[in-house]
């Protein structure tokens, strides 16, 4: 049976502790569920932090200076706001400012729904994209996770890994979809929206709207293949979709880059510019299938 994303993370972590004398460090790691079953259920190599954000990431960054390439776990991406400073001000600057590396693997876990409202809803990788010297990615499949781990072990840099709880139970791979030579649009999916983008392609195919789909794994530096860019060049326009806030966010930034690379109009769709609420009617998380389709219809109308 294929491994799920959660099982893949757990296996990588176990190997890191056993073979590399690595450590996994964070708050409430050994609690029930072992971080959604992504941490090996044992004490070896696991460092339980007190409930101390800011200092917590500083401790993890400090450990990265002496070896061990710590995996630093943030159970909610909302905690990135508190833990950002040592990652941004120390780890990211280390190679340039001090001449030695701080290779830390930050697992930031996004979640939404279930009444989390203003507290833990959302993905916040965008704010890190404006910081030099951090690699940022958002793996949603087991193979992608293995791939970004290999990259981390090859490099001597801090990695921000924008995970999403929605991917943990999934074992399927998400490949790019190129159904059309001359599509109406090319969709660029980021984070958990990628699961929905697949459905969007299927639904719109039935309606006669031609959509190709590109999966965006690397948010910084962004990497696009010729095939991916050509799909956009042959489209009427592009649309980048992400779980994080649209305003000043990953979607707009990547849309701008894609537009410059292809001279095609590329639009953005992310979470709305408002505080999410706990009540279902007030939620503000990843754009849903309905929202993505609605946006595409509006853009098609505008383009035609």
């Amino acid at each position, binding site marked *: 049976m294929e491994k799920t994303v959660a099982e893949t993370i757990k296996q990588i972590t176990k190997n890191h502790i056993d073979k590399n004398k690595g450590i996994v460090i964070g708050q409430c790691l050994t609690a029930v569920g072992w971080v959604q079953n992504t941490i090996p259920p044992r004490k070896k190599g696991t460092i339980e932090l007190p409930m101390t954000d800011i200092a917590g990431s500083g401790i993890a960054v400090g*450990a990265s200076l002496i070896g061990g390439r710590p995996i630093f776990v943030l159970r909610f991406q909302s905690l990135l706001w508190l833990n950002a400073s040592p990652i941004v*001000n120390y780890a990211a600057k280390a190679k340039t400012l001090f*001449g030695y590396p701080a290779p830390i693997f930050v697992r930031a876990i996004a979640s939404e729904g279930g009444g989390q409202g203003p507290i833990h809803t959302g993905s916040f990788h965008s704010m890190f994209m404006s910081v030099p010297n951090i690699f940022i990615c958002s793996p949603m499949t087991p193979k992608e996770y293995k791939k970004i781990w290999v990259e981390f072990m090859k490099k001597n840099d801090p990695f921000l890994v924008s995970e999403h709880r929605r991917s943990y139970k999934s074992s399927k791979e998400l490949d790019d979809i190129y159904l059309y030579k001359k599509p109406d649009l090319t969709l660029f999916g980021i984070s958990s929206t990628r699961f929905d983008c697949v459905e969007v392609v299927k639904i719109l195919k039935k309606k006669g709207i031609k959509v190709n789909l590109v999966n965006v794994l690397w948010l910084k530096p962004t990497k696009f293949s010729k095939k991916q860019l050509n799909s956009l060049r042959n489209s009427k326009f592009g649309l980048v979709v992400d779980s994080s806030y649209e305003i000043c966010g990953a979607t707009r930034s990547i849309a701008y880059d894609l537009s410059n690379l292809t001279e095609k109009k590329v639009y953005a769709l992310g979470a709305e510019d408002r505080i999410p609420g706990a009540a279902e009617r007030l939620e503000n998380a990843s754009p849903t299938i309905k929202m993505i389709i609605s946006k595409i219809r509006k853009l098609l109308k505008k383009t035609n």
Partner: protein
Amino acid sequence: MIKNYSKLGLTKKLYENVDQKFLLKIFDIMSYCREFENNVKYYKDKGLISNLVYLSIGQESIAATVSCATKNPWVLFQHRGHSNYIAFGGNQKKLIDELIGLETGSNRGYGGSPPIQDFNKKIIGHSGLIGDHVPIACGVALKIKKNDSVVCFFGDGAAEEDYVLSALGFAGSKKLQILFICEDNDLSVLTPTADRRNWNLKDVAKSFNIQSCDITDDPILISNKINLYKNQLPALINIRTCRDVWHEGTGSDGKPAWSRYNILKKYLSKDFLQKVNNIEKTNKLTMDKLWKKRLQKL
């Protein structure tokens, strides 16, 4: 400024059986560091240093004594760290080059005065945000070898940062091999401690199960406490000291409450006048020459 420093453990009794060679060694390092800082002051005033500078004049006895009383630890400090850097064996040529902004500097000219580092000498750099190296020091302590240790210097202002307090709690809980040294000059920029808080760090450290004390910058007191704590880490020593110059720059806030340098010099001069004079003369010559040579690279 501190008024009741005589109550912080400075007694004549401590000096009855003092190893004066040890004190001479400390004075030598203090003098060397001071000559370094005098040059920084001189060239900053002449406009040859354009970076911000945080001088350690007045506080040298702490770096000098801790470096003599500890065995090759990992060292972290923040701004006002020139004396710490020199006392723990950091490359002085690179330090000068850094202050004058050269590619050959300790941080290739990126850092200036606060983030100086020399990883080969186990001196880890500081981001420049006060106190944020204290949790980093705890992370370093998590990964060091069994017989190794960490010394982490910070100031009385940094002690108030939430992440410093959390890091102390972590060090106490995990029994990390860290000696925390608070260089307490009673000023955060220019705001006295009493205007900022009503607690003292020694008590806070104790509540985290960290051995702690509150003393002056007298070298004998410092080395005695380090010897006492060396097998009981983590420990924290809050050391009252007097900054002789502005928070940043070369100006003066007025006469300090005491000058440890002058006190020690006077004490040693009673028996070793010639040696004390030679130390000062040699250090001045050495340091002036070194600075002149490095400045030729500009």
